[in-house]
């Protein structure tokens, strides 16, 4: 092991590799999650965003390398905010509250109830009958009502109409516990970049972690443009798809 920095971490991945059917998806990646940080995981389709989250959650085990968790006392290691699609659609808010309470000892039911009420989400309506925005806020309310040091969210803004995205951002910022961190996979980097402290770029099976403020101060570009340049997509131009072409090119 290399010399440790004194800095506190919640999660440390070292040389983690993961393949599906012998097709490598992630190769020897590293990831550090420090407390009180919001991290965005960006990458093209199939770059391994969800796999990375599941490795962080412990839902997948690395085939090589190590995933270490450093859990402050009184907290649980992770809370994976299940996307509405992964929750049983027939369950009502009340059912889901009971479900979470039975499954997770660290679930704060009163907080979750308070959140649902303040968001105006009816507790007696099945999940599938909620609007997509309400369904996402419900799933985030459940996830954030666990006492975890690391929260995971997979594409919290997808399926949400642009007008409601601000609500989701503000919801996360308002209710994230202070010393905990949030790791979220996202396609909508432009919608999230100002609330991200760090960006994790998945590209060609590797991961690069960089602070968004250093992207802005060092390179003078937005996190989204930086991501596009790093992954060989460049700025999207009208009329050209451009994907695929730039993908294989090796940089000097």
């Amino acid at each position, binding site marked *: 092991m290399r010399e440790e920095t004194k800095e506190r971490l919640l999660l440390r991945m070292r040389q983690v590799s993961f393949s599906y059917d012998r097709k490598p998806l992630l190769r020897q990646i590293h990831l550090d999650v420090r407390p009180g940080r919001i991290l965005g995981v960006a990458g093209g389709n199939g770059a391994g965003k969800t796999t990375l989250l599941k490795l962080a959650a412990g839902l997948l085990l690395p085939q090589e390398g190590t995933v270490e968790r450093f859990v402050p006392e009184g907290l649980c290691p992770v809370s994976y905010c299940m996307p509405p699609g992964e929750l049983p659609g027939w369950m009502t808010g009340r059912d889901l509250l009971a479900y979470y309470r039975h499954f997770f000892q660290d679930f704060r039911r009163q907080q979750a109830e308070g959140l649902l009420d303040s968001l105006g989400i009816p507790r007696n309506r099945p999940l599938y009958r909620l609007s997509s925005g309400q369904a996402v806020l419900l799933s985030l309310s459940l996830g954030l009502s666990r006492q975890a040091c690391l929260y995971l969210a997979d594409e919290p803004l997808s399926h949400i109409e642009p007008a409601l995205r601000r609500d989701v951002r503000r919801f996360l910022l308002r209710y994230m516990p202070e010393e905990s961190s949030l790791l979220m996979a996202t396609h909508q980097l432009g919608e999230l970049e100002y*609330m991200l402290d760090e960006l994790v770029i998945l590209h060609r099976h590797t991961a690069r972690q960089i602070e968004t*403020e250093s992207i802005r101060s060092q390179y*003078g570009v*937005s996190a989204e443009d930086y991501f596009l340049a790093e992954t060989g997509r460049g700025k999207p131009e009208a009329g050209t798809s451009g994907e695929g072409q730039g993908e294989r090119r090796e940089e000097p």
Partner: protein
Amino acid sequence: MEFDAASPVYIQIGERIREEIVRGLYRPGEKLRSVREYAVFYEVSPLTMHRAMQYLEAEGLVVTRKGVGSFVNPRMEASAARRMRESQARQFVEKMREMGLSGPEILELVQECVREEAEKGGKA
């Protein structure tokens, strides 16, 4: 909230709050909103907001009392507010120079604007 993507967000927020302080939205000694409230308002991470507050502290505009909150520096008025006004005025003068105006012309322009504003205010 819109930011310039090409420069650090904590400085941009710090500058906005500085402007609010200098414009008198907060009195010296008044408590500012909490880091969390600002973070939600600006839709930025709490860490970015902490940095913005540290920036304002370093600039002498804000004092932070641990566990209590951040306050407008009660002794900032004289120095920092004045510096801020001066730098705004300097920027204006610079811009007018770039447009090719001479010193007296700039003064005349300012006088005219002030007079106009007073007249408008008088009518209202």
